[in-house]
């Protein structure tokens, strides 16, 4: 198709762009793309916080790590890390499924499984952090 397809040649949907819109593996557009970028920025900040904390922690014993994570700021930062990274991973794994699972039924099943796993995983992480934080200093 020419770059400047005359309207009369463009087919049933009217315009040239109408012919191709929604034909990508995801059948949708920019919202996913933007969310991936927003959460990427969140991931960069949250994971940097976690890795710098790993460098600064004097040791990795239960008492040390538990006391660290029961403080307000680390618990809050890790809760944000869970939300941002799981959201980002859900988007990334969705694209993986869209690219490699061709059959519509299997695609739906894989995405349903992915959503359950992401919600369950993030929920477990947040609940664990809440339990650590609310237990207070031992």
């Amino acid at each position, binding site marked *: 198709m020419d770059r400047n397809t005359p309207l009369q040649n463009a087919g049933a949907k009217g315009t040239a762009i109408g012919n191709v819109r929604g*034909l990508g593996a995801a059948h949708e557009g920019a919202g996913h793309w933007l969310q991936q*970028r927003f959460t*990427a920025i969140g991931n*960069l900040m949250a*994971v940097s916080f976690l*890795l710098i904390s*790993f*460098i*600064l922690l004097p040791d*990795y014993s*239960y008492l040390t*790590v*538990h006391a660290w*994570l029961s403080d307000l700021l680390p618990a809050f930062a*890790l809760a944000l890390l869970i939300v941002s*990274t*799981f959201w980002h*991973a859900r988007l*990334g*794994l969705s694209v*993986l499924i869209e690219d490699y699972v*061709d059959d519509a039924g299997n695609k739906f099943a894989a995405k349903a499984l992915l959503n359950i796993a992401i919600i369950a*995983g993030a929920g*477990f*992480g947040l*609940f*664990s*952090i809440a*339990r*650590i934080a609310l237990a207070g200093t031992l």
Partner: protein
Amino acid sequence: MAGRPLSPHLSIWKWGPHMLVSILHRATGDGMATVGFGILLWWLGSLASGPLAYADFLAIMGSPIGIIVLVLLSWAFFNHMSSGIRHFVLDLGAGYELDTNRRWSVATPIIGVALTILFWIAILLT
């Protein structure tokens, strides 16, 4: 399959550094989303469960195999981070000149490995 032209699959392209960066970005991302999340949730869950569960976590992840997995995971993060930042630059519309694009494609995996080494040196020194 769709009745329209599809891009040819990986096997027929001549490999270049940009393809390696793209594949590594996906592989490291999916690795972190599966293995990484498993270990992250195990770590948080064992901390929340108590000293006995956490001792199990430390014993396994502190073993040589566990350390290797953690090193690979940290590499996955730093590699994904550097190619992700490259994505942000490309999103701005910059860096598409052939030379520039190739140069940064070669640089991102090297930066990923370098940051991994620096991170573990920092862990060992402090």
